[in-house]
């Protein structure tokens, strides 16, 4: 059996396919990159846990053949924190959408970053609430239309990776569904990083976002994402005007800092044999 087929057999719940996603959705590409990253990171299947929130991308948990936990809207990181603290040996990956993570889950996101607990967050950023039909999220670019912003949203979107960095995350990377190999590599690095790692995956939602904003079909959207992405190495030589409307991709930051679960268990060592 070819390696890829073996991977599909082992890591996907093939009986649960086909998935619920619309044709042309980027969620499948991101999920596939994750599966390949698990393999390359070399973790045992039984040690991998997938936690997800609520939204289109969070449904990925149901298709992945691991211990999977599909939680409540915005709270995936808090469920994951409890699990990781109870079982620090597990590799915990948390799939969230942009609304899930940055709006309703914003508080948990910054505090998970602050603790620097060894969770791997994968945020599928399609700039919209897809499952509920296209409402604007904190990551919808200003001016873009949504069912709840028919004239274009007036709100400013924020940079999720900078938010995480400010809050204390020790690993931040951005990839895209248009460049799945790079995304996979970033996921491997994030998985191996000790501490809270944040990977933002830009992904097309042709149905709830693309159509309303006249961004074309899946192919046009993927091309657009690709064209707007600037590798971090090149971005450092560009002016802020040149970077306007672009997305910097690659490993944005990574540094070492004490990891929460390890520190906790080290702290309570003193009570052993007492």
């Amino acid at each position, binding site marked *: 059996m070819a390696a890829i087929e073996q991977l599909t057999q082992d890591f996907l719940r093939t009986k*649960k396919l086909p998935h619920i996603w619309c044709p042309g959705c980027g969620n499948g590409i991101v999920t596939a990159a994750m599966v390949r990253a698990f393999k390359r990171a070399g973790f045992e*299947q*039984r*040690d991998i*846990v997938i*936690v997800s929130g609520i939204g289109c991308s969070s449904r990925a*948990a*149901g298709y992945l*053949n*691991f*211990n*999977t*936990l*599909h*939680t*409540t809207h915005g*709270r995936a990181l*808090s*469920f*994951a*924190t*409890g*699990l*990781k*603290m*109870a*079982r620090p*040996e*597990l590799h915990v990956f948390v799939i969230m959408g942009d609304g899930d993570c940055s709006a309703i889950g914003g*508080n*948990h996101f*910054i*505090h998970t970053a602050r603790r620097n607990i060894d969770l791997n967050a994968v945020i599928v950023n399609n700039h919209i609430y897809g499952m509920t039909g296209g409402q604007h999220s904190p990551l919808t670019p200003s001016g873009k239309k949504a069912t709840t912003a028919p004239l274009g949203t007036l709100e400013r979107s924020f940079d999720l990776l900078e938010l995480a960095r400010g809050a204390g995350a020790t690993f931040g990377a951005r990839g895209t569904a248009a460049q799945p190999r790079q995304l996979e590599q970033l996921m491997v690095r994030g998985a191996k990083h000790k501490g809270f790692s944040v990977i933002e995956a830009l992904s097309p939602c042709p149905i709830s976002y693309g159509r309303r904003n006249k961004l074309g079909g899946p192919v046009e959207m993927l091309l657009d994402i690709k064209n707007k992405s600037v590798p971090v190495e090149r971005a450092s030589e560009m002016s802020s005007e040149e970077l306007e409307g672009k997305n910097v991709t690659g490993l944005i930051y990574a540094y070492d800092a004490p990891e929460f679960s390890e520190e*906790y268990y080290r*702290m*309570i060592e003193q*009570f*052993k044999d*007492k």
Partner: protein
Amino acid sequence: MPEKKPVLMQGNEACAEGAISAGVRFYAGYPITPSTEVAEHMARRLPELGGVFIQMEDEIAGMAAIIGASIGGKRAITATSGPGFSLKQENIGYAIMAEIPCVIVNVQRMGPSTGVPTAPSQGDVMQARWGTHGDHPIIAFSPASVYETYYLTIAAVNLSQKLRQPVIMLLDEVIGHMREKVLIPDTGKLMVEKSSDNVPADWKPYDEKGLTPLVPFGFGHYYHVTGLFHDQYGFPSGDPEVVKRALDRLHDKLEKYRDEIVLTNYVGHKEPRVAFVTYGCSVRSARAVVKKAYWQNRWPVGLLSLQTVWPFPGREVEALARQADVIIVPELNRGQLVREVERYSRGQAEVVPVNRYDGEMITPDQLMEVLGRWLP
């Protein structure tokens, strides 16, 4: 029986110690009056025992974290009070649906809203029943003393494990902050066997055949957990038949083990003319009255105290209503559980509510006065 030693303890501490005795090794929560001592006690004790204490960023996260820990195989508890209890409701519903064992302590304070944070109340009885959305089953205990708090918390943890059902400990400010003597077993093995041992090969996480233990994550059983309606393997389903069966199963589970869940205690005259039915701190005032009226004066008076408020002890109340002419229901609210008492009395006894909601306890004198309408 293991040897017991008497300890002077606060209700909130007894709750924490009871949880520890029952094997709880994980606490996540957020500070709130008047429950904070539970967290503070756990913050000192759990590290000594190799357990985890974590103060989360908010109430919602505290609830989510104990569910996560429970899925990881740790016995887990959180404590809160009114406003925090409101915030926890969504994830309580999740734990019910996903059948994740956990215990939620709500030390009731005077509401609504911020209310009087330091005043006692029994205003969350209906919230404990219906606080989370959907037609769900729930278990809630309401202790009337520090001693009962300790033992009911142990029962709550063990039942929650056995039934894979969240259990609410409905304390109130009086019980939470009172100090009383508790007999703590010295070498108590008070926890039931670990539920994940001896997993059969054909284990299904949501077996329709009956109770099935939760196998923690990380042991090679790649099942799915979700708050969506799901089949026996945990996978989402919107099939009307699956949905109905799943919801019935959640309720049937509690019905089947009712005798282990529904705990009540009757004291007083064998054939009472007037009986009190109450729970939590209000039991204490009613007991003082029964002491005087029955033990001293031999009046036909009794007291049915409800350690379990949910599922409601309907059969016990119905039996009492057949015997007594009058049932008095003291509560620190405008009348919540009294409606259940009326429902199960089925018109066989006159049901009289006694309510107080000014942040003070119902006094024995107040109850004596009510009793005086019928006796001596």
